[in-house]
């Protein structure tokens, strides 16, 4: 497959452009996606190229324009809705949960909501307590939704296209710390959007993660190799439905698992993964599963405190060393 090297931001944009070109029902709608070029520049240039019929700047009204997206999807369109960041998505959550996710079931299967909602997420930019949230699990909890977390450049481009092909509502999380990174973008997606992928094979311990933390896990795996610990890195990719088979397969092989998740510890998706391993791979475990999550504090502004709150590569390395000698 031929490849391109792009930034994550460009890969996202390439996905949106391909969708706009391929399907006339697709449009992009959200705050500042047009004239401004997107709060993080993802949609820069699209308004000029595709016009205001396809690139729609909305007023500040998250519940309103997400609800409009749900209605437009019901009416036969294929909207891509950008909620600037997950931090503002609480304002739209009722429409996402009680409408988008639920309409199909409430109507006895008569209608469906082919809607894609994109949100920037994550911490690391010193944006403090109201602008650094990792709330993937809020959405992963909801039957009727699918939730994606593209961590690679190929996924950044292609998951959007896969999501648009899905007849049901899909939420996509784009970690802000990835935007400026460069990477290969394959011409096609590697696999269905609902599958987890082993990004690094290993035999001693499974590092299970997604999104912005994948790269920390991969760095840790490199360091661990030097310490003679063979870490397998599993990229969950799809947070709902979870690819439990892949999780169980990895842990069955390595007998040890560490979950890295940028959410606050309590009530995070990491807990869910740990519970799944408990239920489906308990007898294969040589040590208790560990979680490395964000410390339970609203993200503080100063860099040293922010970084201290987030899971870090060194912690993964230490945790892996400890788990190898556990009990």
């Amino acid at each position, binding site marked *: 497959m031929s490849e391109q090297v792009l930034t994550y931001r460009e890969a996202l944009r390439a996905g949106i452009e391909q969708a706009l070109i391929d399907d006339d029902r697709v*449009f992009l709608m959200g705050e500042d996606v047009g004239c401004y070029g997107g709060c993080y520049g993802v949609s820069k240039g699209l308004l000029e190229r595709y016009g205001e*019929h396809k690139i729609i700047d*909305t*007023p500040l*009204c998250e*519940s*309103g*324009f*997400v*609800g*409009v*997206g*749900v*209605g*437009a*999807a*019901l*009416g*036969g*369109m294929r909207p891509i809705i950008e909620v600037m960041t997950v931090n503002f998505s609480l304002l739209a959550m*009722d*429409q996402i949960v*009680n*409408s988008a996710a639920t*309409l*199909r*079931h*409430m*109507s*006895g*299967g*008569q*209608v*469906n909501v082919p809607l894609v909602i994109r949100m920037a997420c994550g911490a690391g930019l010193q944006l403090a307590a109201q602008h650094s949230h990792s709330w993937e699990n809020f959405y992963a909890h909801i*039957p*009727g939704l*699918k939730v994606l977390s593209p961590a690679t450049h190929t996924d950044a481009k292609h998951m959007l296209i896969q999501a648009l092909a*899905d*007849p*049901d509502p899909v939420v996509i999380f784009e970690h802000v710390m990835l935007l400026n990174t460069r990477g290969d973008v394959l011409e096609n997606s590697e696999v*269905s959007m*609902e599958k987890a992928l082993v990004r690094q094979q290993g035999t001693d311990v499974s590092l299970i993660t997604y999104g912005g933390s994948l790269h920390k896990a991969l760095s840790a795996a490199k360091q661990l190799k030097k310490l003679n610990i063979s870490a397998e890195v599993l990229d969950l990719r799809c947070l*709902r*439905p*979870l690819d*439990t088979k892949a999780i169980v397969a990895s842990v069955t092989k390595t007998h040890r698992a560490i979950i890295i998740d940028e959410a606050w510890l309590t009530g995070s998706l990491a807990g869910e993964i740990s519970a*799944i391993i408990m*239920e*489906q791979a*308990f007898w294969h475990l040589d040590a208790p599963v560990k979680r490395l999550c964000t410390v339970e504090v609203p993200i503080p502004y100063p860099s040293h405190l922010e970084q201290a709150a987030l899971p870090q590569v060194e912690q993964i390395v230490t945790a892996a060393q400890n788990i190898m000698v556990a009990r």
Partner: protein
Amino acid sequence: MKHKLHLDRTYLLAQLKKMLRIRHFEEKCAELYAQEKIRGFLHLYIGEEAIAVGVMSTLCAKDNIVATYREHGHALARGLSMKSILAEMYGRTNGCSRGRGGSMHLFDKSQHFYGGNAIVGGGLPLAVGLAMANKKQEQQALTVCFFGEGAVAEGEFHEAMNLAVLWQLPVLFICENNRYAMGTALALSESETNIAKKASSYGMTAVQVDGMNVVDIEAASSKAVDQIRETNKPYFLECQSYRFRGHSSFDGQLYRDKAEVKLWQEQGPVIRLITWLKDNNRLEDKEISSIEAEIKDEIQAAITFAEQGEWEPISDLTKDVYSPAVSSTNTSQGEQS
């Protein structure tokens, strides 16, 4: 394609029948609720029949409808069969939402009837979105959104009004102002109690109409629909009405006194049309009886239909969470070991 108003005797009798059909259906629902045939919350439309009947009379087949949990009347007036509606309230698979939704979630895609929303205000942006889809696809359809005056205080009302006007979308907003949101009187809910005036501050035509007069409603809605089809712009109708029964199945009605209810009942939409027809068109009691007999039969048939409906097998529990032909999802109950 302007909508024509008919005010001849035959037409008005037909409108009367539509209202009576809702009235008697709702009364029967109350009975069936007491018998525990219908469960959950039950919100009756008694007293407000003129609104649904008047507005629906002015719509085309491809126009979309978005309603609330108080939507039996809208569904009946739109043309969903009484059978499928009642079966839905019985929770049977022959219900209009296959029994999954119940009283608050009546759906019929073939009739462009998009529910049945139990979140106050939740349907407003949805309706704007449906209208956007129509406009983008250059379909000659409009979307009607019914909601109570209680929804006007919600932020989503504001957001939806602004978007509909800003983007010039073909929506007909119908505010059913029945004076109370559960037990909260309008004056406790809105700093500006003239809802139409409030709506007009967004820059759209907004009109108050007597919600107890089916002819007035049809006339106002007809004008609105014509204007929307011509201009593709939204339009707002505030229908001043009253609900004769409690908010839902659980309501002691401590918040209003009986005299007030009685006053409104005396000018109810059914009694008013009957009186008018009697005064002006020699309507005879036996004509009413014969209409009511027909309705009674229809209701009886609906009950039979509903009672004969099947319960969906428990093995299908997770059906319709996702569309078919998409890979399976986590739906087990956690007993995986």
